[in-house]
């Protein structure tokens, strides 16, 4: 009798070689070979590019947003609807058909379950898309279109602006007007809260058909709590169409231009603390309609009439990468919190999700 002990090992393991050491059919050996092969490959890096083309809108998509957790996208269109998309799979999850005119602007709540929408019908509405129910309605009866809406990062304050030369800060839950912030020139084109919710950028401006050189675009920084304007620039010759904060809140972005003509299109990066213009670029031949900073970066994502999504280094005035796919002007861009994905809305009636290159 050998020192191998049959009874002792028979409870789990047959005599001699352990059953576990090498599964029959080479199942363990084959698995080990496959695992080693998988581990020896470079870590799967997905190629940047278009992930989904989301169809369904019947007209231009002029505003898009990504929920703070990166799971959902919202799009507002001239077809008067707002849609919510599941970004991973590209499915349309909800559709809001409450607006009586073109939808101009959309913004997600902090929990991603609500979307604030602004429309040419003169209203801004808070919409619970999971329940497909309208929660609150602002601006009703004040006249003029709503062009820009924004929800503060804590979800408590809504900013709405439109045809009039002012925008309003409201308590989201009660609809109570907190502040009215007057601007030298309307209409209000773009509103963005800073990442900490303490400040707000506004972009406004009017199109002047003749008399070039007249000041008609404004960019202002506001303190949300007091409603005070901290600094402002009112010397842009074209309307300020888009404003944005960098993720650290230190930089501001603005772009001026006009959709229908190739006039002076300027993108600028500003120091938020001082209002100093750090970078200025006038060479974009086509108007840029929207821009966002990449999270954790000083580079920008830009979209415009040239149908491109551009990754742009403003310090070097250099295009890092371009993404082609849209068949018409691109009006809006949003970026996920982690900088991995961008969402764009276009005149080709589609919303597209793009995987962005990492480490840029």
């Amino acid at each position, binding site marked *: *009798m050998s*020192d*191998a*002990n*049959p*009874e*002792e*090992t*028979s*409870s*789990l*393991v047959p005599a001699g*070689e*352990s*059953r*576990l*050491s*090498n*599964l*029959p*059919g*080479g*199942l*363990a*050996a*084959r*698995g*080990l070979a*496959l*695992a*080693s092969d*998988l*581990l020896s490959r470079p870590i799967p890096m997905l190629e940047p590019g278009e992930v989904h083309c989301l169809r369904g809108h019947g007209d231009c998509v002029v505003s898009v947003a990504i929920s703070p957790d990166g799971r959902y996208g919202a799009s507002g269109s001239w077809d008067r609807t707002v849609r919510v998309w599941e970004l991973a799979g590209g499915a349309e999850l909800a559709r809001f058909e409450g607006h009586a005119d073109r939808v101009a602007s959309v913004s997600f709540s902090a929990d991603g379950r609500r979307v604030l929408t602004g429309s040419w019908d003169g209203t801004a509405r808070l919409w619970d898309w999971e329940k497909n129910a309208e929660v609150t309605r602002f601006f009703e009866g004040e006249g003029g279109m709503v062009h820009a809406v924004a929800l503060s990062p804590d979800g408590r304050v809504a900013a709405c602006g439109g045809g009039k030369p002012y925008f309003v800060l409201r308590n989201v839950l009660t609809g109570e007007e907190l502040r009215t912030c007057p601007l030298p020139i309307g209409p209000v084109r773009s509103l963005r809260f800073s990442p900490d919710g303490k400040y707000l950028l506004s972009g406004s401006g009017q199109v002047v058909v003749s008399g070039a050189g007249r000041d008609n675009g404004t960019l202002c920084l506001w303190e949300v709590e007091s409603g005070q304007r901290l600094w402002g620039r009112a010397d842009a010759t074209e309307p300020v169409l888009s404003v944005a904060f960098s993720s650290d809140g230190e930089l501001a972005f603005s772009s001026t231009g006009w959709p229908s003509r190739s006039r002076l299109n300027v993108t600028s990066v500003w120091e938020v603390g001082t209002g100093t213009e750090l970078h200025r670029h006038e060479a974009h031949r086509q108007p840029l309609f929207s821009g966002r900073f990449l999270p954790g970066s000083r580079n920008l994502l830009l979209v415009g009439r040239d149908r491109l999504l551009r990754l742009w280094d403003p310090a070097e005035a250099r295009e890092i990468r371009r993404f082609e796919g849209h068949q018409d002007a691109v009006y809006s861009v949003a970026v996920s919190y982690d900088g991995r994905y961008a969402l764009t809305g276009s005149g080709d009636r589609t919303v597209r999700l793009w995987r962005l290159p990492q480490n840029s």
Partner: protein
Amino acid sequence: MDASDLLNPTPEERELSRLLGELAGLEEAVAERELRLNQLEVELHVFEVQYLEVVGKRYAELDTLLAQIADLEAGQHPDSAELLERAEEAWARAQESADALDAGRTHPVPGHRPPSDSLKKLFRQVARLIHPDLAEDEIAREKREVLMGAANRAYKSGDEEQLASILREWEESPEAVVGHGTASELLRAIRQVARMRDRIGTLDREIAALKESHLAHLRARVEAAETSGRDLLAEMAAELEPQLLEASARLDTLVKADGSP
């Protein structure tokens, strides 16, 4: 025997007490190794069940498809001994994979909780007392082996009560009573020390073999990948999926060409 005898032990008595001391240390070492081996087996088995469910299942499916394909191919060329042999090999492999899957599923999954300290302590106590290598002769050895097997099972299923009752049964049995006489005790102790040393060597080899096993290496890789946020088992399953689809499509084509349902 007067007091001086106690104070001045004979050389045999001194040797015996030295051997008994060594034996106690060796018993402790054996029990410790038994525990480690058991622990390793339990952990590997938990991993095995998970692995078979996610990856092994797909290998088994793939092997069955490949065997069916080889079968049909052999059927198309009845004269080819090579194809026939290949089909037989494919079936043998498919059978083995299916067996592995069954074996993994039928063995009870031990509780996922780690064994309690009291269970470990009890097992160590049992292993020290009734280890078969402490037996005097073959009959006694067999009896100890049966008990040790039962103790192993009880430990693996975490059955503390069962372990305690094995211990009680042993303590009440005549085996537990040790014979007298320095000479016979000395002889017994020498034999036991030798056996225990052998046993330690065997256990060490078994533990090393288990640690060097394919399954253990696979588990180590899966766990390492997990710490860097990768689900290696899922990646493996995803890697096999296209092969399954391809084999399945190939089989469909062959079945259609074969004209039989």
